């Protein structure tokens, strides 16, 4: 039965080449854009090294200090009493209002003092991803970002090591001058990734021994993407000793399971209330902003202040809304075309019904035909998507992000095709399946 539907579907498509072309054009481009979008989201938010455990991570990128004041309003009412003005004063305690506000990443001393024993966290790491160096080699300038971290950083983020190893706790403690390079940095600096381990790189006035090379993260996030990774004890100046709360550091905590993240988030928030502020006359309220990986991603995209969860909701809403709006037009268009096309086949539908097809099987047949059409469009769209992804990656319009087309994206794409095919085929098919046999046959134009 399916094979006969399939044969017929192909024949019908061949009969009206122009209609088929229009339909395929719409379908393939729509699906191409959906596939590229899926690939983008999967690359940015999927679980790949070094963020394979992203669903167990809680980041603490921001510390906020506020001065809250309570508004007090005096008001004087004048009323006429026995021909004389009378005054009646009232005083209102208003809402708490924010007066000053200061928000930034955190200092090492703050993290070291307050954030080492967060309940629910199996591991934690503090790192600074805020420094850049200009390095000149063979008359060429290289702008290297340096990420300073402790040794647990490498346990939480599972980087793919192309060669060598990460640095050990003892090396961090003893301020050993070692560095891990990204593949790109190794190629830029040494011209190769072969036998680079053991050689040294001159940066920040130091000779650093290269002990490992890691693969570039495909999804660029500022807390994993860097050119050089260094032990945090090599930071210059007073970065580690400064006692203020604001500083260049970020913390990451690893929960036992994705669900356990909420324990960590809650614990961090509660902790903020118990930490005494250094200058209460300037700032009297401390807030910490813990965030999940996806929450933080949304936070950077959406104009929501200090609220990654709110940002994520907004991001989801906007993304789904835009997606629906985008699918709407091609779907309407395809429905419109399908109705015109299906009308032409009313006599065939009539005959099928006369020979015992019930409405359900007519519906199934027409929807199936549309799904076949969508999958043809899907294959074209897939080819276009691969080409577009290649172009996007090649031209680096998305910066360091390299779009991928992996199995997950492929499965999502299949699902998208199916949903699109059923969605756009259902209404016309339903209309046709409800046609009265006698009227259908009268159309008389098989």
């Amino acid at each position: 039965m399916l094979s006969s539907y399939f044969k017929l579907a192909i024949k019908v498509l061949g009969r009206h080449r122009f209609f088929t072309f229009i339909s395929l054009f719409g379908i393939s481009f729509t699906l191409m854009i959906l596939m590229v979008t899926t690939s983008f989201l999967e690359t940015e938010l999927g679980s790949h090294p070094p963020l394979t455990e992203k669903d167990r991570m809680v980041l603490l990128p921001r510390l906020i200090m506020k001065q809250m004041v309570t508004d007090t309003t005096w008001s004087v009412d004048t009323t006429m009493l026995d021909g004389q003005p009378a005054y009646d004063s009232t005083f209102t305690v208003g809402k708490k209002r924010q007066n000053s506000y200061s928000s930034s990443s955190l200092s090492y001393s703050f993290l070291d003092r307050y954030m080492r024993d967060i309940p629910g966290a199996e591991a934690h790491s503090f790192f600074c991803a805020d420094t850049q160096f200009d390095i000149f080699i063979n008359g060429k300038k290289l702008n290297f970002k340096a990420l300073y971290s402790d040794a647990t950083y490498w346990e939480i983020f599972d980087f793919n090591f192309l060669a060598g190893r990460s640095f050990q706790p003892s090396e961090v403690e003893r301020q050993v001058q070692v560095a891990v390079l990204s593949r790109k940095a190794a190629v830029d600096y040494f011209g190769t990734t072969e036998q680079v381990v053991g050689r040294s790189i001159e940066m920040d006035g130091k000779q650093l021994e290269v002990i490992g090379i890691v693969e570039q993260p495909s999804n660029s996030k500022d807390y994993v993407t860097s050119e050089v990774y260094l032990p945090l004890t090599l930071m210059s100046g007073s970065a580690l000793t400064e006692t203020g709360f604001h500083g260049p550091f970020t913390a990451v905590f690893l929960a036992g399971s994705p669900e356990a993240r909420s324990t960590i988030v809650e614990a961090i928030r509660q902790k903020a209330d118990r930490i005494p502020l250094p200058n209460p006359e300037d700032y009297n309220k401390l807030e910490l902003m813990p965030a999940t990986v996806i929450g933080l991603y949304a936070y950077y995209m959406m104009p929501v202040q200090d609220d990654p969860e709110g940002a994520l909701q907004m991001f989801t809403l906007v993304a789904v809304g835009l997606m629906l709006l985008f699918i709407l037009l091609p779907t309407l268009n395809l429905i419109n075309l399908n109705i015109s096309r299906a009308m032409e086949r009313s006599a065939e539908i009539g005959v099928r019904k006369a020979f015992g097809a019930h409405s359900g099987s007519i519906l199934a047949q027409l929807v199936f035909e549309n799904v076949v059409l969508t999958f043809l469009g899907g294959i074209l769209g897939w080819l276009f998507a691969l080409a577009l992804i290649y172009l996007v990656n090649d031209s680096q319009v998305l910066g360091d992000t390299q779009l991928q087309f992996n199995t997950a994206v492929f499965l999502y794409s299949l699902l998208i095709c199916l949903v699109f095919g059923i969605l756009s085929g259902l209404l016309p098919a339903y209309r046709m399946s409800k046609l009265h046999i006698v009227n259908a046959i009268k159309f008389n134009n098989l």
Partner: protein
Amino acid sequence: MIQLENITKVYQTKVIETTALDNINIEVPEGEFLSIMGPSGCGKSTLLNIMGMIDEPTTGQVKVAGKLVGNYHSKATARFRNEQLGFIFQSFHLINELSVIDNVELPLIYRKVSGKQRRQMAEAALTQVGLSNRMKHFPSQLSGGQKQRVAIARAIVGQPRIILADEPTGNLDSAMGNEIMDILMRLNQEQGTTIVMVTHDETMARKTHRLVRLFDGQQVS
């Protein structure tokens, strides 16, 4: 085999009411070859459609092969049509995108019949109408008479007990028409299939067992 009791069919639009059939009572016994004649617009096609359960009478009772027809849109009715009835139309109504054999297989698609068996049954039906050598052709490659023979093969492939033919020879010249008529008569005689045929052609009608004449929705003989 077919019993129509007090059948009335009224077409209603906002403005006017047209009576297509007015109190028709017909009984077709099993094995009969009945023809229905009458001028254009007398309601003979409507009558045939009602017998074939593809149109619903306004009032009256239809009993086909012992079954009282209730809901016209149910799956059961579709199934019943599929197993008991075969249709032949004046303008053939073959599906152009399908080959001859695929067209003939059509009714079997809606039954639980294996692909191999479908093929065998369709070949047998085509052999019966003398077209076993045209199985892979497409309708556009056939003459009118051949097309109608394919349509007959399609009508008989499911071995229905009743065949309903709406002017099967109407679009054919007399030689081809006679050929079609011969096939139908043989079917009636050899397999005892009940046949109801609507026709314009007096000579064709005379070859059948019984002739019913309609005029303005009423049975006149």
